[in-house]
């Protein structure tokens, strides 16, 4: 598993809601040796598996409300975990990952302002510009992560999958 997991999510048929997948694809094109990329429509429980194996994660999504530009914030797992398969947020998914697999990566949430959420493919011109800003923000974050000493894999407390047995 590569050190950094990027998860870009959103609906590519709702114009700027496709920012998450599009930025993730742009990162994938960079072919960075320490970065794995997943692109999806929405966050689902199955993402807990690859998340639990990553040392760092970056979630990328569009943000409703066009003000403020590209934003990068560290994610904090909620104290009280909840997760819906239909609509969830990255912090809840991290909590889910820890509950199921005993591990969750240090994570950030990179959000890009959405200017147009009507039905359609492609991005608005303003969103195209924020896509480039988002790419630059990711590169800077990746450089910061690269300076963090790598943890030894055996120090990671991930619960391994065990053979399924009947509950008592």
């Amino acid at each position, binding site marked *: 598993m590569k050190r950094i997991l990027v998860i870009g999510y959103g*609906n590519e*048929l709702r114009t700027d809601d496709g920012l998450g997948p599009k930025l993730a694809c742009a990162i994938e094109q960079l072919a960075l040796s320490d970065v794995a990329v997943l*692109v*999806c*429509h*929405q966050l*689902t*429980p*199955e993402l*807990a*598996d690859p998340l639990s194996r990553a040392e760092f994660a970056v979630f990328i999504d569009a943000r409703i409300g066009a003000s403020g530009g590209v934003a990068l914030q560290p994610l904090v797992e909620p104290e*009280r*975990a*909840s*997760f819906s*398969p*239909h*609509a969830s947020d990255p912090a809840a998914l991290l909590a*889910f990952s820890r*509950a*199921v*697999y005993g591990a969750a990566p240090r994570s950030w949430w990179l959000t890009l302002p959405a200017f147009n959420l009507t*039905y359609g493919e492609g991005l608005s011109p303003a969103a195209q510009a924020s896509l480039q800003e988002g790419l630059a923000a990711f590169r800077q974050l990746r450089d910061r992560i690269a300076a963090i000493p790598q943890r030894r894999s055996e120090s990671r407390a991930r*619960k391994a*999958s*065990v*053979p*399924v*047995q*009947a*509950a008592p």
Partner: protein
Amino acid sequence: MERDSNPVASMSKRIVIDPVTRIEGHAKITIQLDDDGNVADAVFHVVEFRGFERFCEGRPMAEMAGITPRICGICPVSHLLASAKAGDAIMAVSIPPAADKLRRLMNLGQIVQSHALSFFHLSAPDFLLGWDTPPEKRNVFGLIAADPDLARAGIRLRQFGQEIIEVLGGKKIHPAWAVPGGVRSPLSEAGRCQIRGRLPEAFKTTRLALDLFKKVLKKHERESKIFGNFSSLFMGLVDPDGGWEHHGGMLRFVDSSGSVIADQLDPQRYDEFIGEAVQSNSYLKSPYYKPLGYPDGMYRVGPLARLNVAEQMGTPEADREFKAFRQLGNGAVTSSFLYHYARLIEILAALERIERYMDDPDMLSEDLRADAGINKLRGVGVSEAPRGTLFHDYHVDRNGLIKKVNLAIATGQNNLAMNRTVAQIARHYLRGSQISESMLNRVEAGIRCYDPCLSCSTHAAGRMPLHVVLLDADGAVLQEATRS
């Protein structure tokens, strides 16, 4: 707070559960009590609207397989396949056998992933952890804490179903793969190896879940008797031998005694025997069997119905489970609680059929498309979505532009039955003004038996805050409950 305008119920109380939790989409349940505090009526209604049937007008028919899956992020495959079949009908083509098998393989993957989600994430917390477990623990996290291996196995089972979809269609959600006339690509050799490799674990998890459910069924005899246990019709597709069918075949109706009352009905002519009533307080339509009228023509669809209309599952292990399952009914199995059991048997049947397809050379065939123009001005595509029979009905002009769309969704067809289920459960548990959390959850759990997807049923999406209020006849608040 509105006072009911019905003169009979003018002095009665109303309990509202809004929204129902752990279902796909959002809904409200209204329970009407009479002066004595007994349940007079119950309605499950949806208050969101999205309008797919209208904004598709004017679009090219060929686009519908790309548009309609966006109705829902949980069951897009079902819409994809039904839409493609509607296109096949408009083109008046028979698609190549390999394309039909590949579409079936994708539908089987969809059944596995959707049923696994329903069982492990949405429903199992109730009957495995106990109805009276505190709500903050009666969820998938509670399940993880109680039995982490089972929880992980359930996640991986759903993941397996999604992997089949992704291997075929290129992505797990909204794959642009089935098209009018066939499919875009075959199964790759690498994909076949991947699926084969995951099958043993999937079988193991499913067998474990079946064993577990049969054990808990003994503890939930009461729920089995009152969670939607009533006479109704059941409808589903069957194959030419009357066997379990998930993607082709003809329609069959049976009654609660298991007697076939209508058989070999052409899905293309569904509107000749299925009517749709509109409720004033909901965007969820109420289909009914026309010969019996509304509302007597109520019927159920989905796993319970499919196992009632079928005479066999067609694969050995599922057939053994099917025989045991049918012993639970007198003719047909009528308890909606047993939808959960039927779902697990369908997962097993799906896995057995997926396993067979892995040895079928047609899976790798490149003969996948039939080409034609617009040859009919109307086409109906029917497929068994995990939740039940799904109809896509398109009318087009000579250029293939959509003039009219009707989508008859699985969950909508269960609407009348869900109303009746809520009323039945409420009659057993609601007394006066004492509302317990576990009682409310039993009413919601009755709805969850049907695994409704309300995003599909109203083609809707959105979130609603939860606020449950019980008022007395004068409008004073007796009790309030909030779920965030």
